[in-house]
């Protein structure tokens, strides 16, 4: 009896092992491609995984991606790939350029995770992104226009700039604050110096600073960014110097209000209510705090001149301010106010460039209508 039992166990074990071997007979296969993305800084790769087995045989694979730089290996990604027999793209970004990226595919075989395929590539940085060659030529044209027109302006050629209503009121606003014996508040937006609107605002601050210095009116400039604060202090100091009133400049009047958006808004509205400015300039980049600032300035009876290129905030300024500079008027303002040849030349260059863009767009529309997409495919790509 005992012998029969041992015999049966042996037979059952053989059948079981044979059965397992049958299911494991399917060899896991997975196609793996890895490519270095062209026309970029040299940190991007794309991995393409195409499962070759049927889902009922191999349900999932495991992709492990490593980077190798200076002999040091670092795991970048560990992705579970569900087998749907479709090609999958997995983008991978390395920390450094010229890094070897190694991709390995694993699958379960005999209860173990077995490497079934691997591939590697070394990332290379490109000097030029040829896809953006149109941006390069546009930049060259724009910069050339600026240089030519600034040179014309410096030679004394009269460059006409049309009247911008909001800017004509700057004098009135400063004059009104002076008559009322109240300070002028200036907020150059809440963004950093990398924002074009902030740079434009700091240019306008110079003109406002000069006018304020001429009238001996106190000027308060509230800042959110430490770098903008430094630039604003320099700009105001220079404006007072050029107006011949350096004695009026007080560095503490150009101050850091707060680091975060709504903390800044609460400090600014508190300052407005306590100091009751006669004129408030809100020029630069603003976000959700725009209405808080504009409404508070309105509630203390200040004349307000606002301007931003943030299209979502312009409506709030239009609704609550006396004058609003819309979008590009903010960029034109500094040239209009100062009449400095450099700025006038730049403004003219902007206009000429816009004219070129207008012509290109009309050309693209016409050619597109007749079925030729040259302009869209190559110039406006």
């Amino acid at each position, binding site marked *: 009896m005992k012998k029969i039992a041992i015999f049966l166990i042996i037979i059952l074990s053989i059948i079981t092992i044979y059965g397992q071997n049958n299911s494991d007979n399917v060899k896991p296969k997975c196609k793996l491609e890895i490519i270095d993305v062209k026309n970029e800084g040299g940190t991007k790769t794309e991995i393409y995984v195409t499962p070759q087995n049927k889902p009922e045989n191999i349900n999932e694979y495991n992709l492990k991606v490593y980077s190798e730089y200076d002999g040091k290996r670092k795991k970048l990604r560990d992705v579970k790939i569900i087998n749907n027999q479709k090609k999958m793209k997995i983008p991978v970004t390395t920390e450094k350029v010229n890094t070897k990226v190694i991709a390995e595919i694993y699958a379960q075989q005999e209860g173990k995770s077995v490497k079934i395929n691997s591939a590697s590539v070394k990332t290379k940085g490109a000097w030029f992104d040829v896809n*953006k060659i149109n*941006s390069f030529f*546009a*930049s060259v044209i*724009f*910069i050339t226009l600026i240089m030519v027109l600034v040179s014309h302006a410096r030679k004394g050629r009269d*460059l*006409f*700039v*049309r*009247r911008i209503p909001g800017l004509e009121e700057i004098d009135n606003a400063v004059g009104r604050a002076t008559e009322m014996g109240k300070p002028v508040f200036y907020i150059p937006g809440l963004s950093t*110096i*990398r924002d*074009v609107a902030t*740079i434009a605002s700091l240019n306008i601050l110079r003109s406002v600073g000069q006018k304020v210095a001429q009238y001996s009116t106190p000027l308060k400039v509230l800042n959110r960014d*430490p*770098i903008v604060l*430094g*630039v604003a*202090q*320099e700009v105001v100091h220079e404006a007072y110097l050029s107006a011949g009133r350096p004695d009026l400049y007080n560095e503490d009047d150009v101050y850091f*209000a*707060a*680091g*975060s958006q*709504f*903390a*800044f808004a*609460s*400090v600014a509205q*508190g300052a407005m*209510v*306590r100091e009751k400015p006669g004129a408030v300039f809100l020029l630069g980049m603003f976000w*959700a705090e725009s*209405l808080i600032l504009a409404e508070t300035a309105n509630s203390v009876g200040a004349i307000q001149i606002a301007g931003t290129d943030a*299209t*979502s905030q312009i*409506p709030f300024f239009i*609704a609550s301010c006396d004058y609003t500079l*819309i*979008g*590009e008027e903010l960029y034109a303002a500094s040239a*209009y106010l100062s009449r400095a040849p450099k700025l006038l030349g730049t*403004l*003219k260059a902007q*206009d000429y460039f*816009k*004219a070129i*863009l*207008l012509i290109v*767009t*009309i050309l*693209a*529309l016409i050619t*597109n*209508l007749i079925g030729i997409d040259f*302009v*869209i495919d190559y110039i*406006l*790509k």
Partner: protein
Amino acid sequence: MGTILWSTFAVFLTLSIFSFLIKDNPFYKFAEHLFAGISVGYLVVITFTQIFIPRVWKPLMNAVNSGNILAAGFLAVGILIGLMYLSRTTDQYAWLSRYPISITVGFYSGYAIAPALNARVIKQLHSTVVADGESLLNVQKVIDFFNNPTFSNLYQATYGPLLVIGVLVVLIYFFFSFKNDNPVIKYTRKPALLYMMVGFGAAFGYTFMARISLFVDRMNFIINRWWPLIENKIM
């Protein structure tokens, strides 16, 4: 107990800020100064832990330890330029702070040109001609509308041309080199303003609703989260 205490403090601060709607008062001043102080402190800590330590100090130490003089020198120059900004605290050497300011302003002004041209100009104009692979001036859609004059077909036929006209007239509005009585400027001015005001009106309504939802959320916190906590404690 801690939850009730902090929630009550949050409610107190919320109401302190709202009290500004009546008039400036000590509660608002307290909330304002607390908010400003915390934001500055937080900014300092974040700058130190997330910028200075991982991007300056650690790479510098790694470079020094591995004997990479070039990398260490590069970082040291950066630190030196950054430290120049602190010279603003002295009268004698305040001029040194102009160097980091000039480098920052110069770099970002130049750096902004190409990406701004690409994203704000070229891509926008491309989308004025073709959107989702379809021409915006699609004659076939106009023909479809005349064959089958439904509201949907009217929308499809007019959407593209209206957008194209809007872009062109608004672009002309922002020409500053021509006098206001120039015929092109004169006749496109009103349509351009109309287009902009329609857009601003829509943006106003949309953002206003978002602000209302923030207010509702705050009231929801007070009424449905804080008050039940107090009620349970009292009852």
